[in-house]
């Protein structure tokens, strides 16, 4: 038999000047189960709480109803008070006599009092069905996974490692560094990009807390915060990276040269290669599409007639430590992690949709990222900017902004944020490379929001003499060996034609290929542009709707290097807050299945937003089973369950039904 104590709060006069509290006390005193009733001017005050604690111990109360303000205000307060007196906090209920009664029925004291009585009755009826709940401790695997080895992922990994936790960094390419590694210089300080990035990359390789898995991809994720089971596929490099010393003979001597992805096909690489000199790890991989020996083997296997391709194997012959491992195969590893940071980064928008600019048609129309490679000392032209068409240095360079950005028709509606600044950077750097270069920048709105950015773009105009023209370009066409750019300067309202040697397109920033697949694996959502979605755009910009999964860098929205770094650190901070715990205490208000009632129709599996329900076989029958780690207690399953086999703790059928049944009786 439950012993319910009812505690009525006057809330100063907030409640008592409208509700006749003593009358309420009288009315509820004899309700079934009620063994103690008390009033207090301020239930939430320390004396008020003390009164509750005392009553629990002295009168052996097994249930507590506090009739005061909104539970959203003080539920925690009173639960804590009960817990201090040794009562399970989930045996406390509240009747909302203030927000839902005295404050909204001030004009009718009688009605308010009657309603107050019913609200307390309702709470009393409900509470006899409350059960003591204890939060399930979720064991925390104190290791983190970072997906993506760009600057954001690198920063996150380093910060987590610095706090003394194990972290695995998975990168799809054969080196970390990401987009930043492709850049020549960074705005607004014009630091050499690799000069500031390389040390961090090396640190990743050397930090004992960091396990670096390059040339690897996440294949599947199961489990939940505290214990994610992640399967990672390490693609075969055909090189034994333990033996390999990275001496470089193989990639120097390899005869099969192919366009370099890293140089965006503006340069060449070998078929056994590292993408760029500062790559980390400095260990080559064999490009299995182009390698001559692989081709030879395929030819042999196919049993085709005709002339055999050369065996080659020069790399193997020359490799001092004999590190070539032709029979190496992909390897799938499964590891457990407590938290996951997603830093999948971005790709440049493909400008070929704009026929009017002739990208891909006229060799001297290139993208901003391609220009970075031409400017880079380690790039295909060793830092000498030359026209792809004839190898001459361009003197007149025209920049086109918003290629794919701010275009709902053929591109993306959003602003890509970094273009305005890197166009300014390019203008400045080009001038440094060759004082004769004249840059023209077609912009729509020069967006220089950021520390030192406005000053920087002034510098492009004042020092580097870049001419800014406000307007979008309509067409680029070749004439007399030049590229004629047709635009408008909307400030003067006249058409502008410039005969350029080179045209640079500021291609929009789009989420990197495969980011949406990663999102699906992690059960996090992505928007119509496939950027990953934060738990709250303002107050939870790093978290996602899946506990323990955090976002960093440009996978959320376009952002520049400093933003990527801070997003990386922010994600690390969130991760560390989790890893600092031995166990997590989740809310105990999760769903539970009554296997005897479950019909196994599996409708609940369909409606659960958190994939928290799976099936198990109980006594030969396949029935639903809830993963408490994933369950958020929304109760969607409960509402669709015909035999009422799934209930939500703290919002059970019995509790709700008792509330309904208590009304107007």
């Amino acid at each position, binding site marked *: 038999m439950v012993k319910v104590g009812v505690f009525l709060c006057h809330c100063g006069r907030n409640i008592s000047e409208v509700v006749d509290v003593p009358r309420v006390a009288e009315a509820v005193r004899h309700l079934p189960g009620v063994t103690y009733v008390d009033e207090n001017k301020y239930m939430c005050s320390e004396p008020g709480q003390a009164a509750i604690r005392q009553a629990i111990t002295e009168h052996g109360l097994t249930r507590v109803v506090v009739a005061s303000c909104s539970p959203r205000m003080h539920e925690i307060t009173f639960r804590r008070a009960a817990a201090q007196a040794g009562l399970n906090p989930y045996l406390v209920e509240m009747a909302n006599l203030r927000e839902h009664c005295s404050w909204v029925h001030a004009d009718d004291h009688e009605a308010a009092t009657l309603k107050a009585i019913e609200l307390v009755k309702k709470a009393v009826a409900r509470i006899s069905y409350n059960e003591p709940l204890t939060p399930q401790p979720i064991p925390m695997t104190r290791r983190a996974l970072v997906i993506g080895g760009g600057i954001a992922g690198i920063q996150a990994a380093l910060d987590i490692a610095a706090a003394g936790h194990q972290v695995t960094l998975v990168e799809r390419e054969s080196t970390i560094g990401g987009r930043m590694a492709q850049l020549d210089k960074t705005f607004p300080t014009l630091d050499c990009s690799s000069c500031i990035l390389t040390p961090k990359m090396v640190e990743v390789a050397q930090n004992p807390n960091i396990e670096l898995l390059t040339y690897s991809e996440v294949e599947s994720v199961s489990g939940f915060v505290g214990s994610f089971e992640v399967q990672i596929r390490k693609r075969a490099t055909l090189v034994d990276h333990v033996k390999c010393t990275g001496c470089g003979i193989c990639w120097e001597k390899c005869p099969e040269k192919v366009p370099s992805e890293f140089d965006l096909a503006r340069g060449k690489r070998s078929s056994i290669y590292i993408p760029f000199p500062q790559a980390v790890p400095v260990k080559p991989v064999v490009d299995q599409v182009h390698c001559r020996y692989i081709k030879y083997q395929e030819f042999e296997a196919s049993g085709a007639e005709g002339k055999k391709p050369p065996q080659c194997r020069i790399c193997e012959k020359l490799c001092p430590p004999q590190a070539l491992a032709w029979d190496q195969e992909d390897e799938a590893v499964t590891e457990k992690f407590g938290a996951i940071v997603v830093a999948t980064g971005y790709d440049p928008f493909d400008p070929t949709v704009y026929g009017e600019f002739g990208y891909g048609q006229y060799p001297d129309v290139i993208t901003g990222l391609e220009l970075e490679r031409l400017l880079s000392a380690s790039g295909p032209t060793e830092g000498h900017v030359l026209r792809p068409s004839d190898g001459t240095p361009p003197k007149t360079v025209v920049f086109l902004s918003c290629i794919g950005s701010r275009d709902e028709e053929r591109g993306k509606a959003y602003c890509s944020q970094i273009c305005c600044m890197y166009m300014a950077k390019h203008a400045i750097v080009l001038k440094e490379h060759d004082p004769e270069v004249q840059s023209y920048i077609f912009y729509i709105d020069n967006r220089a929001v950021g520390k030192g950015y406005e000053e920087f773009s002034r510098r492009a105009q004042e020092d580097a003499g870049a001419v800014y023209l406000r307007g979008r370009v309509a067409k680029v066409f070749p004439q007399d060996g030049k590229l004629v750019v047709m635009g408008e300067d909307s400030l003067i309202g006249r058409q502008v034609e410039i005969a350029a040697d080179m045209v640079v397109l500021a291609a929009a920033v789009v989420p990197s290929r495969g980011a949406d697949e990663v999102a699906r694996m992690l059960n996090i959502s992505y928007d119509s542009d496939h950027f990953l979605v934060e738990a709250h755009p303002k107050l939870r910009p790093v978290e996602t709707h899946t506990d323990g999964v955090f976002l960093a860098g440009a996978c959320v929205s376009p952002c520049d290097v400093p933003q990527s770094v801070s997003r990386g650190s922010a994600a690390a901070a969130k991760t560390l807050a989790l890893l600092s715990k031995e166990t997590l205490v989740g809310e105990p208000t999760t769903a539970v299945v009554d296997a*005897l009632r479950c*019909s196994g129709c599996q409708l609940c599996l369909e*409606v659960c937003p958190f994939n928290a329900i799976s099936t198990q076989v109980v006594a030969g029958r396949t029935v639903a089973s809830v993963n408490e780690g994933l369950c958020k207690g929304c109760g969607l399953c409960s509402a669709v369950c015909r035999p*009422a086999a799934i209930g939500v703790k703290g919002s059970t059928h*019995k509790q709700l*039904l008792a509330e309904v049944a208590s009304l107007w009786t």
Partner: protein
Amino acid sequence: MVEEVRDKARELLSAGTVECVIGYERATDGITARPLFAYSPEEADRFILDRTCVHNLARYLLDRKGKPTAVVVKPCDSRTINLLVHENQIERDKVFAIGVTCPGVVEAHWGETTEGLQSRCGSCPLEVPVVYDHLITVPGERQPRTGFPELEKLEAMSPQERLEFWQQQFQRCIRCYACRQVCPGCYCPICFVDQLDPMWVGIKIAPPENQVWHLIRAFHLAGRCIECGECQRVCPVNIPLMLLNQKLTAEVEGMFDFRPGLDAETLPPFATFRKEELEAER
């Protein structure tokens, strides 16, 4: 065509393809039909097939989970198979469906059958079963679609009139639950109405309780009722239960363009949603 049923049954049983063939045989009143569970080729001779074969035999598949079984299914009954496969109650490959085309069935009660077809046949969208492993074509003109005439009649009434209509119906209910026992969609181990903790429906057999039972029963079949009409057929006090089901069938089709049991893949209305929908119906 009766022979065709018998031949198929013999073949399946003697080949051991299935352990049991569920079909119809003549009832002892010599007029109506009753289910026959044939386990040996010999029994196959007793199968019949005519317009008195009203029962939805597919419902019995629920009692033979995992056991290879053949069953004679009319178009309406065949939807049961899709429903139960979708709801993970039976495995398709354990079922051999002997589909029969259907010109409609008559009202059949012990010792008597009507000339005219059952009213629900008028709203039946099908002539050929939606699933079958072997198809038998039954000759005979199919009566023209009548839609849901009784339904429209009731919808034309005022809420007050409807209330009275249903109160009269519900107060006759003796809560024998025959409607549930015969329903292919009612297979919960413990039906909510039988649950005592919490007690959803009062034990008292009175209109208010009866109404809760019938409303929730109907709602539990929303987007699931395959319109076999068995509930109404077996009701000992002749409550027109199909009206409730037909109402929801019509609403579901109108709102979600969905009719249950036509395939085993499409998600039923309560298993999914579209972000842009229904703001008017709220």
